Each structure stands twice: as C-alpha cells, then as structure tokens.
C-alpha cells in the first residue's frame, strides 16, 4: 500500500477533512479581518495545546485497549449492561464525574466499555455526567473563570441531568427494540 492510499484510507476520514477545511477557512477569515498578529497568536496557542494533549490521547487509547482485553465481557455486562439498573447508573455517574482530562481521554474509555458490552443508556449517563459534572473541568476552568456562586448554582441544577439522560436513553432504546 502506497503512502498516499494509506493516508486516504486510514488517516483522512470525513471528520478530519471537515476540520481541515474549517481551519483553512476560519484562519483565512481571521487573517483578513484582524491581521498577522491575531492569526499567529491563535495558531501558536493551538500548537502548544496539541503538544500537551497528544501523549494523553495515546495513554487513554492504551488504557482502552487493555480494558477491552482484560475485563471479561460478562463482568462488564453485569456492571454496565442493560440489566445493570441503578447500580450501573451510579457507577456511570460517579465515573463520569471523576474522569480527568477532556474528550481525548473520556471518549476512548467509552469506546472500550461500549464494545465490551456496556449498554447505550449507561454510556449516555457516563458521557452526560462527564460533561456537566466533570470535577476536573469545574476545578481547573469553571471556578477560576466564573466564580463560586455561579458554579454552585450550575452544579445543583446539573445533578439530575445524567439521570434524566439515562431515563430518556432507556425509553428510546426500549421503544426501538420493542
């Protein structure tokens, strides 16, 4: 397989092409509208971020592969499958809230569990909890930027959201399977 076919088949899917096009278009627009300096600042801060998160992506992927290899499907189905009930929900919500490190860490983990037998509603509960209750993001970003009062109100309101998502997801999949 030549390098170009490999690039095409394995590395450049539709999402990637979309982002390359978007980056080119937005970059050009920014450069025209605000000049060299704004463009360079935005580009170099992105470069720094990429260097910081690239190793995390690889580590999360390795974890995901080990999880798939080590934990028997039966165990995952019992704890996180469609029959896991409230216990599964509790595990997913707690796990989501404590998972550190952004989408580049959380999504590979979900892929690992989903392929080894975790149910759709559990994955949705986990992702919702990770999104709206994720402690890592709250402590590092939200508290310093938006302040204690705002964060407290938002967390209070967001506590039921993963449970609502879990119930809606259960309803949706049950209707489809029936």
């Amino acid at each position, binding site marked *: 397989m030549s390098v170009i076919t490999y690039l095409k088949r394995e590395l450049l899917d539709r999402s990637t092409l979309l982002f390359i096009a978007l980056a080119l278009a937005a970059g050009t627009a920014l450069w025209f509208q605000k000049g060299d300096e704004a463009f360079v600042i*935005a580009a170099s801060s992105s470069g720094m971020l990429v260097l910081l998160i690239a190793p995390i992506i690889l580590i999360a992927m390795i974890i995901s592969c080990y999880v798939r290899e080590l934990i028997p499907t039966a165990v995952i189905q019992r704890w996180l499958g469609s029959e896991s009930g409230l216990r599964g929900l509790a595990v997913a919500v707690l796990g989501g809230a404590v998972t550190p490190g952004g989408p580049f860490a959380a999504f590979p983990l979900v892929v690992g569990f989903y392929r080894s037998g975790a149910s759709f509603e559990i994955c949705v509960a986990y992702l919702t909890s990770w999104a709206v209750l994720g402690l890592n993001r709250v402590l590092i970003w939200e508290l310093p930027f938006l302040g204690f009062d705002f964060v407290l109100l938002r967390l209070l309101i967001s506590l039921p959201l993963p449970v609502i998502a879990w119930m809606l997801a259960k309803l949706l999949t049950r209707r489809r399977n029936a």
Partner: protein
Amino acid sequence: MLSAYITLIVILVFLVLVAQRKPEVSHKEILSQAVDNTLPLLIRIPAAILAGSFLAELIPKDYIVALLGDASGVTGIILASLLGGALPGGPMIAFPLLLAMFKAGMGTPQLIALLTGWLLLAFHRIFAYELPMLGTEFVRLRLIVCLPLPLIAGFSAQALGQWL
C-alpha cells in the same frame, strides 16, 4: 492537565501489572493496536483545535450578549442552548469567551443554558471524537437524548433564581 497525566498513568500502570499476570495478554499487540487507533486522531485533533481557536476569534461577542441579556427570558434560554452547540473549541477557548460574555451582562440562566449546551452538544467534540469513535447511530441517539438537557438547566436556573 497534570492531574490528567497522573491519573491516567496510575490507571495504566495498574492495568499493565494486572495484564502481566495473564500470559495470554500481549503487551506488544495492545500497544500496536493503541498506536493504530491514535494515528488518525493525531491529524484530526490538531485540525479541530486550530479551527476552534480561529473560529473563537471571529465570534461576534457583543452581538450575542445583546441577544442573551437578563431580560431575554425564555427565548434567550432556548437560543443560548442552541448557540452552546456552536461554540467552538475546548475549555481553554470557551471559558475566557464565557467570562467575557458574563461580564458584559449576559443573564445567569442564559449563561447556564449556553454552557450546558456547549458541554453536551458542542459540534467540534462530536465531529472530532464522538462520530469517528462511536459511529453515526450512537451519536444520533445521544443527541436526541441530550437535546432537552440545556433547556432543563436554563429553565431550572431561572426558576431557582426567582425563588432564591
């Protein structure tokens, strides 16, 4: 970021030690599988981050604040929930943007709806991670489930605000 590194490395070391006791698990195979899975991300994610930081600079902040002020009420909450999905980039880009809008006079319920919309529906996260890793069907169903959540958050914030 440091906390993420430490936590993930601790988990990884634990898993490697467990795998070491099982002769049927090959570290080499797992590593090459993980590298194969990571390579496409190493192109997609930089492109997504670059697009996000360029787009963030282009957002008309004042216009959004005028649209979603304290007086914008229910319409403001609905608009904010949808706009949240269109906010580009990760926390490094989104939170400074949100702070600027908060200071410029955006309503609290609207800001909560915007933030929740961004957390759950952000297009860049869906296209950069979720679609390629979990597939169209999963994403479609998850979006149906999560679409009402920013609205619920915004409306409860408004109700709670009146009650407090």
